[in-house]
């Protein structure tokens, strides 16, 4: 029974993934680009002319067969890193991605240490 359940999970994950991926892809890119003329809105959320233009450009890039990463690089080159909401992992942004996990692990170690030390005293 256990095996059947895992099989079910497996099938559901992968069928749903492939069916959806393509339609989600474009929206995901729009959501990750900042509308530069708006106050805190993504390209996907904005009504502005700038957003409309960027949407057309992204559509063209997808047609040309560019990958998601290539599109971000293209946009960042043209408008600066400011346009991308999810900073890319590079030397400059290393600490941004690294610190949260360092806190997570560090916090866990502190708790572990606290509990262990107390146990030794008994």
């Amino acid at each position, binding site marked *: 029974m256990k095996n059947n359940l895992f099989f079910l999970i497996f099938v559901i994950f992968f069928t749903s*993934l492939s069916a959806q991926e393509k339609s989600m892809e474009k929206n995901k890119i729009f*959501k990750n680009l900042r509308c530069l003329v708006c106050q805190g809105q993504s390209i996907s959320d904005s009504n502005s002319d700038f957003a409309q233009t960027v949407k057309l450009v992204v559509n063209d890039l997808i047609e040309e067969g560019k990958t998601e990463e290539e599109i971000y690089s293209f946009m960042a080159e043209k408008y*600066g890193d400011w346009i991308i909401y999810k*900073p890319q992992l590079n030397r400059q942004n290393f600490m941004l991605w690294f610190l949260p996990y360092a806190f997570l692990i560090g*916090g866990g170690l502190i*708790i572990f240490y606290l509990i*262990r030390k107390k146990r030794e005293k008994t």
Partner: protein
Amino acid sequence: MLSNLGNILLFSKVLLSLTIIYFSYQCIKSSREIIFKKIYQISLLQSTLVLGCFFTLIAAYVVSDFSLINVYQNSHTAKPLFYKISGTWGNHEGSLLLWIIILTLFSFLFLIYNNNHPKNYRLYTLIIQNILILGFLFFILFNSNPFLSLSPIPKEGLGLNPILQDPALAIHPPLLYLGFVGSSIYFSAAIASLITNYSEKSFAFSIKNWVLISWGFQTLGILVGSIWAYYELGWGGFWFWDPVENASLLPWFAMTALLHSLLVLEKRNLLYFWVIVLCLITFTLSVTGTFLVRSGILNSVHTFASDPSRGIYILSFLSVMIFGSLFLLLNKYRKENKLIYSNSKETFVLINNWFMMFYLLTVLVGTLYPIFTDVLTNNKISVGPPFYNTVILPVVVIFLFFMAIGPKAKWVKNRFDNLGYFALLLFLALVVNFSIIYFFKSSTILSNLVIISSLFLILSSFFDLVNSILKSRFDLARTISHISFGFLVLFIGLNHNFSIEKDFNMKVGEVKSFDNYEIQLQNLELKTYNNYKAIIGNLKIKNILLKEERTLNPEIRIYDNPETLTYEAAIKTNLIKDYYLTMSNIDRSEFYNIKFQKKPLMIWIWISVAMLVFGGFLRIFKNAKIN
């Protein structure tokens, strides 16, 4: 005239605060066991004056007294009365007055509601709180005085930003301020506790309700802000991880951690110094948030230069607060020698704090990082929703499991004899999750995990709830808050996964169809209102499958003073879903861009948060009963 009255009131408030500090100090030195009567009286007078000061400013707004620069800059005679009043705290100077009100009222209430605690502890709290009040009073007087006068007196004011002309402005800031300015009182109490060595259980007891009150209002403030953003900003979301939003979330994490660790201090006399640290950082984060927002440093580093005095004042105040409390803390710190067993309720509370600190630090790093890259490498980056979703969401999954298991653990020492029960819950959660996925046919691995973990928490809390009704001795407040949090995550997850978004460019009369919907732009109407003109779209949305028809009327508004263009979304809410529609003109052509969204279970997100707060307030009433 109102300008003079306001200034006199502000000055007398400074004198009163100084008097309170002086008398409190005298009282501490005296050998009498009770607090001088005059301290109560002056505190009461102080609270009355601060309200008088605020009403003076409101009066200036109501009669449109443009001899006040503040009124001139933020009001207009043609504005409806309601927005004249709420405009009072819709600007930097006026909102600072609201700060002072809450600082003062909380100081007075804390004084009179803590009779059964030692004299010196209460007096030191009063002194510290009045030092905070003085700090902000000086800020108002020398830098951001709402009562500054202007001559010659202008005929007309500049008006209030239309986005702020909304009922939400009347309640959103006061609620949030009750939350994070309210946290000042346990900042002061924590310092007083360090000074007077008043620690442990009874200290936890004295601040418990204040933490719950500020937490409840902070949550409500964030809720109202989110609802406001949802219907006003026109993109259909309610949380954007915007720096200003983050600034309100940071103290919330600290408060949530605090109200859990207070339980441990109260029950087991453990974690005293950690509780103190949390008290201190909650208010520190509130002031930090204010600094970041008011100095303009967050939106762009350059506006900081245009108004450096504001930022520099708060920054110096903040440094004094941080270094002062840090110095005191290190001075008083001593090791605790009590036991925490790895398997106990204490450990689970620590785990809660661990996750809260992780969220807090992640959001803090995300908010501040762009400032550092800009200063150090002159490269501006954005840290937006995709970053926070990637880092925080997977951790939330684990957090929810702990949140379900934790409350079941016993104090001191615990044994898990209920593993079978948890396995059953997990199985149920899996079944429900996969039936949801099967039904809607759309998901990713992470969203599955989020749904499963929130269902696990909901089911576990639900059985607790049943138990509590049967045995009538369970912790109802906690159960309600935990189950609501589970529902909150579940509904956000479902909403995020199953929202539909489409946009079209269409002319009047055109019909577009997609999935099983048909949408038609029937006509446009031009209307003139008191302070704005509106183009109102008349759109029909037909669900072909359900044979259901709805009319939605999004608007494009042109406000007069100041002249601004805004887009009003049309929203149709019911228990299952929201329809959300916005309209904008394309290049002054006959084409309109129509954006249609279907957002399932939207209203349940708001209800979950309201229930979360309800749980918190229920706990306050329970505490009041016990006392």
